[in-house]
C-alpha cells in the first residue's frame, strides 16, 4: 500500500526540530523495538541523551522513506530523574505528572485492566525513558537497535527495564489493516487527501503553534523545553484473538457472515475497505487506496445501517455523525503510531495457544493525554454520546457480563456474548521533546 502522503506545500512547522514520529508514517512491512529505561543517576541520564541525540531523527522530509528512525520520549518521573528544575516540572499538566496508573479511574482501567495487574515496568514509576526504533527492514532495525544499545552500554546509571520487539505487515493480529487513518496537520506540508476536510491546526499536535482555540495550548517552560514537543500515550494490549474468533463463529454460520460481522464491529472490512463505501462485500482495492479509504462521512447513515453507530472507527472518529452531546471532534484527533507484536491468528483458530501477541497503542498530540482520557471514559466505555446507552466499544472496552453489540437494521440485531477482546498490560504517559529540548535536557541544569 502507498502509505506516504506527498509533501506538496511549503511546511510552516519547524520540521527539523520535531521528532520524526510526529509526521513520519509507519512503513509496511515494519520492524522495531520499544525499550524502557530507568535513570538511576541524573548525570548518566543526561549523558545518554547527549549520546542518543545524533541518532534521533527529525521530521524533516518526512515524506521520503528512510531505513530506520529512533524516537525518544520521557515520563514525568524521568524528567525528575534527569534533574529538571522544580519550576519546569510544575509547568507540566496535572494528569501527565500523576501518570497513567494514577489516572486509572478516569481511564476506566479497572478489573483485569487495573494497574495492579500490569506487567513490569509499567506503573511502577521507574519507566523513565522510552526509546523506540521503527524500521523498514530487519537489517536496518538491527543496525539502529545495535546503535542505541552501544550508547546505553557506555553509561553506568541508566538501566534497561524492558525490551519489546514488534513488527507486522500492516495488518494487526486480528487480521485488520490498521494505522492508516491519520489527521491532516496544517503546516506539515502534506497534500490533502479526499475525506480529510479542513486540516487540523498544528498546535493540536505540536506545542507552540496555534491550536483549534486560535491560540497555542499551554506548554511546559522554558520554551526551549516545550516548543516543538508533544505528548505520547503508550498502552500495551494483549489481544485475545481466539476468543474473538469464537465470538464470530458463535454468531455467524458462514465465512461470509463472519466477515460481515467482523466488519460491523470495526466499521471496516479486514482489508481496510470502509463499510460506508462498501457495505455489502469486501473491496480490497478500496481498502488499500489512500485516496478512497477515507473518502466518506456518516451523516447520510444516521441509523448506522452501513457503519454501526457503535463500531470502533465510528466511535473513535464520528466524523459528521449527529452526537447526543456537544463535542468538538477537531480537538479529539490523534496521530497514531501503534505497533503490533506477536503473530496473527487465522480466523479459523478458536483455541488460545497462550502466546504473547497484541498491539502497542501509541497516540501523539499536544493534548494526547486529555484526549485518550476523554475517549476512554466517553466514547470507548460508554455509548451515551451516540445514544447507545451503556453499550461499549466492541474491540477495546472492558466489557461487563451480559454485554452485547447492536448491528442496526430492520429489525436491529443484538449480538450477545461480546467480551473484552483486548486486555491492557500497562502503559505510560510520555512527553516527546523536540531535538533542541533533548539538547537542553542533556545539559547540567543551571541554578
Amino acid at each position, binding site marked *: 500500500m502507498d502509505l506516504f502522503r506527498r509533501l506538496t506545500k511549503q511546511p510552516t512547522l519547524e520540521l527539523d526540530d520535531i521528532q520524526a514520529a510526529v509526521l513520519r508514517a509507519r512503513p509496511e512491512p515494519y520492524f522495531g523495538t520499544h525499550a524502557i529505561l530507568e535513570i538511576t543517576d541524573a548525570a548518566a541520564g543526561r549523558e545518554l541523551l547527549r549520546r542518543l541525540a545524533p541518532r534521533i531523527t527529525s521530521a524533516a522530509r518526512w515524506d521520503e522513506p528512510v531505513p530506520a528512525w529512533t524516537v525518544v520520549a520521557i515520563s514525568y518521573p524521568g524528567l525528575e530523574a534527569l534533574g529538571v528544575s522544580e519550576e519546569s516540572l510544575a509547568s507540566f499538566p496535572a494528569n501527565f505528572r500523576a501518570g497513567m496508573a494514577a489516572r486509572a479511574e478516569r481511564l476506566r482501567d479497572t478489573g483485569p485492566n487495573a494497574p495492579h495487574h500490569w506487567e513490569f515496568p509499567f506503573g511502577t514509576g521507574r519507566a523513565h525513558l522510552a526509546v523506540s526504533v521503527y524500521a523498514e527492514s530487519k537489517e536496518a532495525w538491527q543496525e539502529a537497535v545495535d546503535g542505541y544499545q552501544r550508547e546505553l552500554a557506555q553509561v553506568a546509571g541508566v538501566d534497561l527495564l524492558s525490551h519489546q520487539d514488534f513488527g507486522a505487515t500492516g495488518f494487526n493480529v486480528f487480521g485488520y489493516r490498521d494505522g492508516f487513518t491519520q489527521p491532516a496537520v496544517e503546516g506539515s506540508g502534506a497534500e490533502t487527501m479526499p475525506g480529510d476536510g479542513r486540516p487540523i491546526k498544528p498546535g493540536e499536535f505540536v506545542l507552540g503553534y496555534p491550536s483549534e482555540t486560535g491560540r497555542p495550548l499551554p506548554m511546559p517552560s522554558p520554551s526551549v523545553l516545550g516548543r516543538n514537543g508533544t505528548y505520547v500515550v503508550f498502552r500495551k494490549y494483549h489481544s485475545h484473538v481466539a476468543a474473538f474468533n469464537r465470538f464470530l463463529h458463535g454468531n455467524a454460520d458462514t465465512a461470509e457472515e463472519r466477515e460481515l460481522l467482523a466488519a460491523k464491529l470495526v466499521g471496516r472490512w479486514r482489508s481496510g475497505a470502509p463499510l460506508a463505501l462498501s457495505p455489502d462485500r469486501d473491496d480490497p482495492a478500496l481498502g488499500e487506496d489512500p485516496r478512497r479509504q477515507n473518502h466518506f462521512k456518516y451523516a447520510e447513515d444516521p441509523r448506522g445501517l452501513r457503519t454501526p453507530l457503535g463500531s470502533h472507527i465510528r466511535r473513535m472518529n464520528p466524523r459528521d455523525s449527529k452526537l*447526543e*452531546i*456537544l463535542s468538538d471532534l477537531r480537538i479529539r484527533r490523534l496521530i497514531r503510531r501503534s505497533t503490533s507484536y506477536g503473530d496473527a491468528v487465522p480466523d479459523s483458530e478458536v483455541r488460545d495457544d497462550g502466546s504473547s501477541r497484541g498491539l502497542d497503542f501509541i497516540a501523539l498530540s499536544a493534548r494526547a493525554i486529555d484526549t485518550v*482520557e476523554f475517549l476512554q471514559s466517553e466514547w470507548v466505555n460508554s455509548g*451515551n*454520546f451516540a*445514544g447507545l446507552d451503556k453499550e461499549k466499544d466492541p474491540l477495546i472496552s472492558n466489557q461487563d457480563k451480559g454485554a452485547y453489540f447492536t448491528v442496526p437494521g430492520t429489525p436491529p440485531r443484538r449480538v450477545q456474548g461480546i467480551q473484552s477482546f483486548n486486555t491492557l498490560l500497562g502503559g505510560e504517559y510520555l512527553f516527546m521533546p523536540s531535538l533542541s529540548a533533548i539538547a537542553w535536557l542533556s545539559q547540567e541544569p543551571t541554578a
Partner: protein
Amino acid sequence: MSDRDLENRFQGLPTTVREKIDAVIDDAKIALKLRVAELLADKEEMAEHAVTSAGRVGAKSGEVSELTAIMPLKPGGAEKLRKFFGLVGGNLAGAGQVGTLHNMRFVFLDDDTKLLFATAYDGEWDPYIDDFATKIPEFMDYLFGNVEGWPGIQSPDVKDFIVQYQLPAEAWFVAHPTLTVAGANRLKRLDRTVQNFLTELN
C-alpha cells in the same frame, strides 16, 4: 397506627439499623424513626439511589451528578446578567444543545454580590470543558465573565477555578439515576414510534 404499633414495627427491623437510628436521631418522633429505618433496611432501593462522588467535588447518583457553586460577582455583574436573563425571559433553551444538562439555575445572593450556579448533569463535567472552550467560548465567557477572577474558558486554570467555588451537596436524590439526557431522548423517540404505531393500528 398508634405509637405503640409503630414502636413494635420499629423493633421488628434489624438491630444494626435500629442502633444507627438511635445513635443519630434518638430525639425524633417514632413515626419518623420508623420511616427512615424502613428505608435504610430496603437494600435494593438504597442501592439504586446510591450516592457516589462526581470527579473532584460533587455528588453523583447513578449517571446523574450535581454541581453547586457560589461565586463572587464583579461590581455590576449581577446587573449585566439580569439584563441578559431578562432578554431571554429567563429561558435558557439553547443549553439543550450541550446534551448532558438535566437542568441548571442562576440565583443572585447577598445583595447581588454572589452568584449561585446549580445544575444536574450526566457523568463528569471536566472532560467537556475543552469542547465548551472551542464550541461555545463566547457564551461561556459572557455568562461567567461576570464572576470575579474568571480566567476565561480557554484558560488551563478554568477547571481549578470552578472547583475552588464548588460546594459539595451533603445529600442528593435523583428519581431515575440511570437515565441520562441522551437516554431520555431515546425513550421519547421510542415512545413516539410506539404511539404512531398504535394510531396506525386502530
